[in-house]
């Protein structure tokens, strides 16, 4: 069970422009992105949110653009998890890949109110109020997704598998590329 966090409630179809507006995207610095998180939906959010807080939303959270900065903004402003009735597919993938916990819950949006104090019990598949008198169900994370989350995101997941040589790299193509564009810099390790 995680520590205690405040609930931030949002409705259906929270789009990526509300999570992080296009006008803030030219700067990829996570701290910059975090300072504008959820600005389109709640102007106070970025200045009040604390490490460990939890977003509870309705259906189709993260719809719209493929911008990964939406996940970066939420992760770096301290959000522990996003619990929604459903997620838009690219946002869901981005969250897993960057190691932000996203969980589907059929009833969290009915059970909890904005400002509630809750704790996340991922192994127990539930979100519980600190007072213990309320809880909502969480759907289990699919197995192939869990493999990535367990490694802390896609980059460590792939790194580990590259080390174990679990992907085949076409050496013919690598050789061709090298012939065309010269050798890689000296300190770059050889491809597997």
């Amino acid at each position, binding site marked *: 069970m995680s520590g205690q966090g405040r609930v931030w409630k949002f409705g259906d179809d929270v789009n990526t422009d509300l999570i992080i507006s296009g006008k803030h995207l030219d700067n990829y610095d996570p701290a910059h992105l975090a300072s504008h998180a959820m600005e389109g939906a709640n102007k106070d959010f970025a200045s009040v949110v604390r490490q460990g807080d939890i977003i509870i939303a309705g259906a189709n959270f993260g719809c719209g653009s*493929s911008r990964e900065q939406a996940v970066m903004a939420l992760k770096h402003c301290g959000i522990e998890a996003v619990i929604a009735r*459903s997620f838009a597919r690219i946002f869901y993938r981005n969250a897993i890949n960057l190691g932000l916990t996203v969980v589907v819950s059929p009833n969290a949006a009915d059970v909890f109110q904005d400002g509630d104090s809750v704790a996340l019990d991922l192994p127990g598949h539930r979100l519980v109020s600190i007072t213990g008198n309320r809880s909502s169900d969480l759907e289990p994370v699919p197995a192939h997704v869990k493999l990535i989350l367990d490694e802390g995101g896609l980059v460590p997941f792939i790194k580990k598998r590259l080390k174990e040589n679990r992907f085949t790299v076409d050496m013919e193509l690598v050789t061709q590329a090298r012939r065309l564009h010269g050798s890689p810099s000296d300190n770059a390790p050889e491809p597997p």
Partner: protein
Amino acid sequence: MSHENTFLIGKSFASFALAYPWDPSKIVIVLDHRTPANTATTASVHAHIRALVKEYGIEKFFDAGEGICHQIIVEERLVRPGQLVLGTDSHTTTAGAVGAFATGIGATEMAGVWATGSLWLRVPRTIQIELSGRLSTGSYAKDVALDLTRRLGPSGADYRCLEFAGDAIPSMTVSSRMVLTNMAMEAGAKAGMVEPDVVTTDWYKGHEANLDVVLSDKDANYEDRVKMDISGLPPMVSGPHKVEHAKSVDKMEGIRVDQAFIGTCTNGRLEDLLAAARVLKGRKVHPGCRLIVAPASRKVLIEAIGKEAAQTIIAAGGTILPPGCGPCLGSHEGVLGAGEVCISSSNRNFRGRMGSDEAEIYLASPATVAASAVEGKITDPRRLLV
């Protein structure tokens, strides 16, 4: 395929410590979102990407000013029927217009694709959209797409593939089909596809080598079938703030418009500029309104000049921007201020997308946008097309 977010892909890819991507010949990079650079930060992002393109030997690179990634890959025949296309942009679905399965992913997983050539995807269920009839004067594929989004809602096609079929399809150009597959995203679709036909194979004339046309199975199992008769469909206007808030133009007429924008991966092609020019010919943009036009590619702009559409737009008082995404995502070239109203041929009217949170965006076809620019208020294009 990726655009400015190649910067993020490059960052993750570098952490794998591989000398080269798995197959640089399959990578396409197009700078389109903030071109020419809107800030010094963007300029250094662009410079970083140019260096990375050289280092990794990526030959299919299109620098600022060439056009929008979704337009380029179809126009340059880089995407072909039967292919699986991954792009770090939600509107990658656009390429389904030529019978490819094209879907949007994030930057980090694209780094994984660069490293390994592989990715997990769930095979989606398919909803067939059967379009019958013929569009009447003043209505376009965009009006069909807006009406369909109204019917499906913003998550009505979540995780699904939309397959566009029916007797209305053969008379639609590749450009019009791209409007449907582009807007499929606004219903949450993973992909939007049009079955290749003679229009598709004509598109690949002179590029026939290894053309692999994949057709729908006769006994295909569809999760759902949506029938739409597009005969008599009026021009549609969506908004503000939600794409599914689409109504026939007569219910929206008279709303004041400060800015009219024609362009984007949805409606910035030659046929769109021609439709706008038809409305604008011999007319002037209303003094209280700005008309901004961003061609979807350099080729579109050259052709629009050849057909005098660009001249008509400029003579009417419009501003032509360099090919690219333009003001669609609110970073430059026509940002909206508080209280301003924009009618746009783009695909999203989310609050704050084009600038101020206090601005309003309405979506419509290029003809409706042009007519509204002339009148300074939302206007039925059929009034100006008679």
